[in-house]
């Protein structure tokens, strides 16, 4: 009974996580946009749309709560995988490295854009999709483990 009840909680947690990922993607699309130009315009400003360039402090203010939130969220999602048959497999190690690494790049790539490395706009977009994809894959593994084992 105890394990059954916990699996319910984890299942609901999966649903909330999917909502979090969807709202994050919508927010990214609305505020920044998924094209190279839109990312550059968001951080470096754009005369046509009257938007000003972001400052280092401004970017830091946005990413600061996200540093903690990303770390906590990724840890909570991935730690559930330890209770599945996938525990201690190469797949899980790779998933853990990939999720944390993509989260790191997603958070810190704006600084490189501000320093003049414009190709980091691509890294920002790529790392965002990589992060969302790896978390979704972790959620899929959890879903499979709850409902098909």
């Amino acid at each position, binding site marked *: *009974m*105890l394990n*059954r*009840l*916990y699996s*319910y*909680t984890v299942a*609901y*947690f999966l*649903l*909330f*996580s999917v*909502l*979090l990922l969807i*709202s*994050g993607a*919508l*927010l990214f699309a*609305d*505020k920044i946009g998924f094209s190279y130009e839109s990312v550059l315009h968001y951080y470096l400003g754009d005369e046509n749309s009257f938007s000003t360039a972001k400052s280092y402090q401004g970017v830091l203010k946005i990413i600061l709560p996200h540093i903690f*939130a990303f770390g*906590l*969220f990724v840890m*909570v999602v991935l730690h559930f995988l330890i209770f599945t048959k996938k525990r201690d497999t190469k797949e899980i190690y790779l998933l853990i490295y990939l999720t944390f690494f993509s989260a790191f790049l997603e958070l810190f790539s704006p600084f490189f854009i501000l320093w003049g490395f414009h190709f980091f706009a691509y890294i920002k977009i790529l790392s965002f999709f990589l992060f969302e994809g790896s978390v979704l894959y972790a959620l899929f593994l959890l879903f499979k483990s709850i409902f098909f084992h």
Partner: protein
Amino acid sequence: MRFTFINNLKQDKSMKLLLNGLLLFIVLYLIFDIFVKEHTLGLSTTAVMSTLFGNEEEFLDPMNKSVFLEYIHTEIFFLMMILVTLSSVYIRLFHKKTNALLHVNLLMISALLSLLTLAISYFYIASFVNIYIFSFFAWHIVALYMALKSSWELNLAK
């Protein structure tokens, strides 16, 4: 969550103290969340409608799309962390009771409903605000009940 592995929580004094602290803070969060929501978004149909869609008579602008998305994104994160923690404590203490599953389901479904109906009312059907308000109070009441019942079980029940 180490407490999920301890056999008898009531006998473990340190863990009991820690869980009491956690439950107290959850109760405080739930109470103050109602005050904050009353101030920011509103808790009546008219107030929520005015915040989301503006009000010409009171010269209120509608809520910006990115502001709304930021709001709901933050809400989802806090909600999921609080609800998972609270239900884990509750399940650990009441897993032998048959209605524990019902309480967890009620809590999670009403919380999910509050998030979804708020988003639906902003983007599609404004009248869903009523369901949002109902589900908002529903999950707060169930969460308060679960937190207080857990405290009772930890400290006062035989």
